[in-house]
């Protein structure tokens, strides 16, 4: 069901290309009580890495995910995705960047009801301008990769939680993005399904996908090759680039 390579999972090599660069990013929410969600965050994600961004709720990790995913812009600092400087891009270009270079997995799955698993995955390529037939063909591959080859025609609302999250992961992967951002992917799952999803993520990474997982779960983070701990909008530790825990 999954493709394995001989490469060590999560291998981190300083010579490989940086897919995601976060440079001194701050994010402030203005209001009656201004909040500084991020206070100067810097780190890189290289091609083929599997990174956990771990932190308690309110640490700023969701804000970081939105900024890394170009769904939000930083108040200061720069984000570089697949070589594109986000600050230089218009809103439309950011959409194009997300359509082709970034895959998202959400805690709530966000599958469209009334659509089959196959069409939910095919919608991952909806805004690339690819034809429906091509999108479905790639969706078949992606669903097979996540182990749902026998569930393609099922209505997405009739699948179990674990299966739904697999569909969502297949949707994030279908276009072969440079980076997949997963926001608490196991947050809505029981421990058994949760373990299976973590295993799937590790397998996909082993097969070459670059994945960043946002989680509050220390145990999951500890199992990954690299964990970036974040607290109060600052990086507390990064097991990948030598910052001591």
């Amino acid at each position, binding site marked *: 069901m999954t493709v394995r390579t001989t490469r060590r999972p999560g291998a981190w090599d300083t010579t490989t290309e940086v897919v995601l660069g976060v440079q001194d990013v701050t994010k402030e929410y203005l209001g009656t009580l201004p909040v500084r969600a991020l206070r100067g965050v810097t780190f890189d994600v290289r091609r083929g890495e599997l990174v956990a961004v771990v932190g308690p709720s309110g640490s700023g990790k*969701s804000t970081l995910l*939105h900024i890394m*995913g170009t*769904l*939000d812009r930083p108040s200061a600092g720069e984000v570089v995705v*697949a*070589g*594109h400087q986000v600050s230089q*891009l218009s*809103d*439309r*270009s950011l*959409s*194009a*960047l*997300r*359509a*082709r270079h*970034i895959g*998202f997995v*959400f805690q*709530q799955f*966000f599958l*469209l*009801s*009334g659509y089959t698993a196959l069409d939910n995955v095919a*919608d*991952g390529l*909806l*805004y*690339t*301008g690819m*034809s*429906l037939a091509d999108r479905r063909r790639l969706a078949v591959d992606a669903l097979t990769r996540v182990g749902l080859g026998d569930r393609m025609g099922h209505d997405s609302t009739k699948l179990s939680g674990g299966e739904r999250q697999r569909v969502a992961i297949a*949707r994030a992967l279908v276009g072969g993005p440079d980076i997949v951002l997963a926001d608490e992917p196991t947050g809505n799952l029981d421990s058994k399904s949760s373990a299976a999803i973590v295993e799937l993520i590790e397998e996909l990474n082993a097969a070459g996908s670059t994945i960043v997982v946002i989680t509050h779960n220390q145990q999951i983070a500890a199992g990954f090759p690299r964990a970036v701990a974040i607290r109060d909008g600052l990086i507390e530790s990064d097991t990948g680039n030598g910052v001591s825990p």
Partner: protein
Amino acid sequence: MTTALAPSRLHAADLARTAAVGLRTRKLRAALSALGIMIGIAAMVGVLGLSESSKSELLAQLDNLGTNLLTVQAGSGIGLGSGELPEEAGAMIARIGPVEQTTTVSAVDANVFKSDLVPSSQSGGLTVQAVDLNLLDTLAGTVADGVFFNDVTASYPTTVLGSVAAERLGIDEVTGTQLIWLGDQWFTVIGILDEFALNPDFDRAALVGMATADAYLDHDNVPTSILVRADPAFVDDVMGVLAATTNPQNPEEVQVDRPTDALEAREAADDAFTALFLGLGAVALLVGGVGIANVMVISVLERRSEIGLRRALGATRRHVAVQFLGEALLLAAVGGIGGVGLGYLVTTIYANVRGWGTLVPPIAIAGGIAAALVIGAVAGLYPAIRAARMSPTEALRSQ
């Protein structure tokens, strides 16, 4: 190494598919909001269709009857005359150039009953009219059963009954032996006429020949009305001189009418109602539009996470706006097409009941669908803009 970004794209077919998501997943709500538009459009198409069908029916009727029939009647009452026209009036009128045909009618002061046993107070509102042999020709009337007068029967105690008169006297077919009590003597019924579209007075009359009236009813045959067929090109001219020709001494005692005017006046009154109902249809359409706007605003709020997801998948603000606008247009189009169909159906049924041909003007069909789309676009615009303006992070956080 950076390559230029190819823009996000959404094919038209995919746009239609995404616009249909809301309709597919919320069928009842979609059906109800489309129903609002449907009722409005059906009302407008139905009103236009019915008005057009009835108008075309009227035109066909006028065409058939001719608008060149004029009636000349003696006014009666103080200052209006004696109720009689000068005896030579018929001949005078016939001398007017564009007059093609005239026929003289003289009201007989007699009552008509089914038998001599019916009390004389129960005349049933029927009249007795002495007529010329060319009455049917001039009025374009037809015989339903039996025959009209000829030179012989017009001088014997025979009668031809109008349709209402025949019904009230209990005669539905002519056997040649039926007798009725007319002016205190027995008359043989030789014919029953079809209904007159323009001269309903004859429907309630028992007709007798002029010679018969003179010989059997002691009637002097002074004309009470003269029916005139004029050259269609000169109808107005003829109308202008009829009164003076009929009674040069007292033209004001002569009343000249064109019976088709009454039909046209009725049609004009119908037009006023058409405008009123069109207005009501427009109000219904507006309410339907407000319904769609309402449903779309709710839909945008409920589907925040879908909006967030689509932005994450690479949809631009414009893609999101167009999706929701497309959904509103689709709702309106469904309502519009359904409304045109319903309006057409109502028109067909009503026209069939009235015995008219169905005529729904193409402009009503095209206009109905166009109006629905315009309403849909207006109703969908605000929700679409709202959906597009929603920030992706806010939309994703909503759950």
